[in-house]
């Protein structure tokens, strides 16, 4: 599984999204109500732990992390920097 698929799998399972037809890699997880505000932190904890990276406050300010694809891009960037 690539990075995007791993994040997608986690979000789908952890937030009990299942096979909702409106869910995809480019949907805004927060605006569309798939993930509530507390979930944002949980996603960051997951990716930090799972991929062994550190998301800084600067990353959050500089890069949008509202969709699965955006989150995957940040993770890939951080992994490349390691």
């Amino acid at each position, binding site marked *: 599984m690539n990075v995007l698929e791993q994040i997608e799998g986690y979000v789908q399972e952890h937030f009990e999204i299942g096979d909702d037809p*409106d869910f995809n890699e480019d949907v805004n997880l927060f*605006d569309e*109500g*798939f993930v509530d505000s507390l979930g*944002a*932190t949980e996603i960051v904890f997951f990716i930090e732990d799972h991929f062994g990276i550190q*998301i800084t*406050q600067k990353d*959050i300010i500089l890069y949008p992390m509202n969709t699965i694809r955006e989150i995957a891009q940040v993770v890939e960037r951080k992994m490349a920097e390691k």
Partner: protein
Amino acid sequence: MLNSAARYLAVTAQRFPDKTAVEDEHGELTWRALESAVLAVATGLLARGIERDQPVLVYLPKSRESVVTFLAALYAGCPYAPVDYAIPLSRLERTMETLRPALTVTDEEGQVRLREAGLGETAVLYTDLLAAAPDVPAVLAAMDGVIDTDPCYIMFTSGSTGTPKGVAVPHRGVLEYAEAVVETFQITADSVLGLQSGFHFDNSTFDLYACLSTGAKLVIIPEILFKYPHKVMDLVAEKEISCIFWVPTVMISAANAGALEGRALPRLKTVVFAGEVMPNKQLNVWRRALPHCVYANLYGPTEVTVDCTCYIVDRPFADSAPLPIGKPWRGARVLLLKEDGSPAAEGEEGEICVLGSGLALGYWNALELTEKAFVQNPLNSNYPEKMYRTGDMGKWDGEDILFCGRRDSQFKMRGIRLELGDVEAAASCVEGVRRCCALFDQVKQEIVLLVETDKPYNKRTFNREMRAFAPAYMLPARFEVLDELPENANGKIDRPRLRREYGL
């Protein structure tokens, strides 16, 4: 006494020209650079024919540019009216109908949005204003014409019919407030304030004017960061922030997420909160984690210039105990009045009514609303004395006041005031809604929305539609579709019955 709250800038820019005044995620401005930008933008505003007391709508992201624009409007002798950059356009349209701005300062993205919605007539680009060669004598003459009872800013809050109300606050209210903040919390040029609030929310007055009057540094914290409490606290540490004034929602999520654990934050000295009830359970988490800080609970509606009572937390509280809102502060007088207008005895509930020179001038372009809320003090028959009826209930507990809830359908979300009628007005705009009823769950602190419709909406699909008419904090956390809403004998929606049925 200063005639304008913007005078602080002139003095501070002289004293600390090369010290950082304000910083956001894109960069920083020294006090000298801030004043230069303000003079240029003020010149640009005057060049576009703006006259004293004409409001300047500020439609910009939470940024240094917003700060420059507010002060430039004041230098040009005009009040500023900040709106949320994420405001739905239908709401912005109603705000503009009430405000009737002479100019709307925005960026390129904002200008496109305004034009597409047919609201672009008064729009002017910040970058174009900034390009003006400063005409210092003209700007100073405009500021000299201001008197301290002129409006400094107009803040929009929720109205019960769905049209936002613009609270017009005079310079003297802001000047007095800034003095009280600086004195009470010992803000100096060495302080660093971490701004949580958006500028369209009057809590930002605390940070902005405390910095302007002392030369302290204003760190504008990006809104997005508050979704990640650990990262916000990282920023507090990294920027060596010494004073925060945050809404309880944000403090609660930091406590609940464990974001304070294992942090020393030796630079943080002062933790102030206001805007909604702060539970002792989470405050105790803060107090245990950061015992060296001073904690203070402020209370007040926008109509009295941000806050009118202050409680410095001076003793331990059990998790379940209520936290007082304290004593009248900064020369305000607070009366607790019963239904018949007589003062409540100790321990008896009364409506919190506020007197003093911090009172707002009224609601912009809404005389009738103003007369209803700003009334003659019933205990004074000797001279006209305006009093603001807050609609909040309180009782005396020794020398301090305890907050006891609302007497109407107003409530708070993330410290932002909301009327149930405002939520219903927005929900009614969604396609297929025949009628709806909004209720507030006091325990969970969330909005419950009951909708009469034939469409197969669920919470997610409904909120997606409703977002076009309402800011995010107005969307329901609980959503139900009903075939028919129950009615009382008068044919009105039977709210008490719905509240019982939903256990609220």
